[in-house]
Every structure is written in C-alpha cells, then in structure tokens.
C-alpha cells in the first residue's frame, strides 16, 4: 500500500535532520573550545535543517493516506438509511432469511412443496424463466 519511495524520502529527511543537529552540537562545542562565542551557526547547517524538515514533511504527507474533507457533512452525503438503520449490537435473527437461505438437507416440516427443499430460492427462480 505504502510506496517505499516515500518511506525512503522520510528516512533520508530524518537522517539529514539528525545530521544537521549533530553538526550544530559539534559547532557549539567547537565555539566553546576556541572561545569565539559570538559566531552564529554556519548557514549550511541552517539550510540543511530547513531542507531536511521540508523533505520529511513532504514525505510524511505522501505516506499518511487519504485526506478527509474539512466539511463534516460532506462525507455523510453518500450515507443512506440502508446502513444507518443497522445497529450491529441489536441484530435479530428471527427474520425470513433463516428460511429463505435454508439448505436443502435441512428437515423443514412446514414447507409443503418438496421442490423448495431441493433447490435454493435462486435456482428455482431461474427454472421458471425457461
């Protein structure tokens, strides 16, 4: 599902970020050793940090999957009562599906038609079409 290219991009970005952080720490200790506290961080470390940040963010956006609409009602536009009315915790099983999909081997004494026992409903319908 996730393209490994974007995962590599995120990996490279994070590594570059870590590398820039490490360089900045080293620069700091170098400054402390040579007692030149007034020098700011070199521009290439700053640039590397920013670029790595942008690269990581860009890669993560591609990994993270579909964006959702900001409008809360828009993702409900396709919902219908067919699915809204179904409450899985309250499902009942005493409906005609228990008889309709009855397998032919089951003994169902109250069905008078022997044909109904041999064919499931679908095949019986097809027979009438011929």
């Amino acid at each position, binding site marked *: 599902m996730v393209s490994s290219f974007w995962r590599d991009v995120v990996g490279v970005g994070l590594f570059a970020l870590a590398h820039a952080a490490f360089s900045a720490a080293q620069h700091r200790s170098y400054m402390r050793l040579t007692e030149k506290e007034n020098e700011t961080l070199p521009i290439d470390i700053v640039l590397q940090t920013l670029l790595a940040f942008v690269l990581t963010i860009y890669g993560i956006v591609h990994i993270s999957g579909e964006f959702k609409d900001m409008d809360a009602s828009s993702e409900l536009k396709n919902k219908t009562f067919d699915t*809204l009315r179904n*409450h899985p915790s309250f499902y*009942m099983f005493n409906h005609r599906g228990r008889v309709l*999909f009855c397998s032919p081997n089951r003994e169902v004494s109250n069905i008078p038609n022997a044909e109904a026992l041999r064919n499931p409903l679908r095949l019986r319908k097809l027979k009438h079409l011929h």
Partner: protein
Amino acid sequence: MANVISFKNEMRDKLRKWREDNHRNSEQIVDVGEELINEHASKLGDDIWIIYEQVMIAALDCSRDDLAWTCLQELKRQFPGSQRVKRLAGMRLEALEKYEDASKQYDSILQDDPTNTAARKRKISILKAQGKSAEAIRELNEYLEQFVGDQEAWHELSELYINEHDYGKAAFCLEELMMTNPHNHLYCEQYAEVKYTQGGLENLELSRKYFAQALKLNNRNMRALFGLYMSASHIAASPKVNATVKKANVKYATWATNQINRAYQVSYARCLL
C-alpha cells in the same frame, strides 16, 4: 499468483468497508468471507479473527449454521474465556431460537462484568425477538439512563417507539441524536418524518423546517425534498392558516417541485450516457 494476492487484498478491503459502514449484505459477506477463510486464512494475519466474527454473524443471517459453528470454534480456540466470544456464542443460540440458553449466557457475562454493554444490548434484542416490545422499551430506557452517550441505542429506541406508534417519544430520541450529530442530515430528515407523521399544524411546520435543514446539510437528499414538498403543500392546504403563510408555503412547494423535476432529469440524462 499476483491475481490471487490482489483478489485477497481487494476482498479483505471490501469486508472491512462493509464492517465499518454497517452493511448487512449477509449473503455477499458469507460468499466472500467463506472463500477468504478457506483459502487465504494463513495470509491474512491477525485480520482473520475479526473476519471470523463478521462472517459468523452473516452466516447466522443466512441460516448457514455449519459455517457459524466453525467460525465460533476457531474464535473459541484462539480466545478462550473471552467475553466477546461468549457473546457470539449467545448470538448463535438466539439464532437457533434457544432464547433461555442465550439469556443464561448473557447473564453469566454480566455476572463476571456488570458493565458489559454488549450483553445488556443482546438481552434487549432477545426481548425484541420474542415480541415483548414493552419490556424491551423499558429495559432500553434503563440502559440509556446509565449509558447516555450510546447513539446506537438511542436510534434503536426511536425505532421501537415508532413501531409502537409513540411518535412523541420517538421524536425525543431523535432529538438526542440530532444534538450529538448536528451535521448528520439523515437524523434531521427522520425527525422531520416523525413530526410529519404526528400531524397537526405546528408539527407540520416543524417538519418543514427540519426537512429544509436536512436539505441544507445535504442538497442531494431526495426524501427530504419530497418531505419539504409534502409538508409545505399540507400547510398551504390547511384551512387554519392565513393568506401570507399560505402563499409562502405554496412558494416553498413549487420550489421543491422544480428541484425534484430537475433531479429526475439529471439522473435520466445520466442514465442515457
């Protein structure tokens, strides 16, 4: 080989979509799920257990008790002593119409864990299945006093009240649902329909307003459009309204008619393509 893998992934995603959207297309679920279980069980990883649960419930709907039994056995083997699996065993007993045994099963779950909502809801479903709707309503009310945020239960209660023709209380339940889901056009529309069924001038006006609200939230809701047309026409035809209100409602009804005609023309044109 690639076809088999993509088929399996496609079917697994379909099953997940059906599960998340609460589709009750049990025949399809049994077809797809049975094939997945029989042939691709090893490659599904941990998804297999939730698929077993989904297929088992669908199998109970389709009277496939053999498949339901196998799924239940697999789940029992993997999760011995789990409350969720016990609930599934209870559901199977319910499907076989052994309501006392199922009730005992749920009671044992509630003894171990008195806060288990699933078992309480199944006991209410047993009452519903046995036709004891008054008791079911009472039990569901008690349940909702403790667990006020359970939206499924509120909707179920509204449906039970509608079946009993107690539209006032059904409207109350739907109001609760609308409060917690203000962006859901379907609750607005169902509330409007209940108000319309109750009848009387104020209820008709209220229903027209809520049909309009449902349309505002989703302008493709055909039932709300028809509802707006019907409630507006009924108000306009009522002898108790004055001329301005009548004119306004005739305007609303004509607007609704135009929208309906346009929607049908658009869908007709789309069919021809």
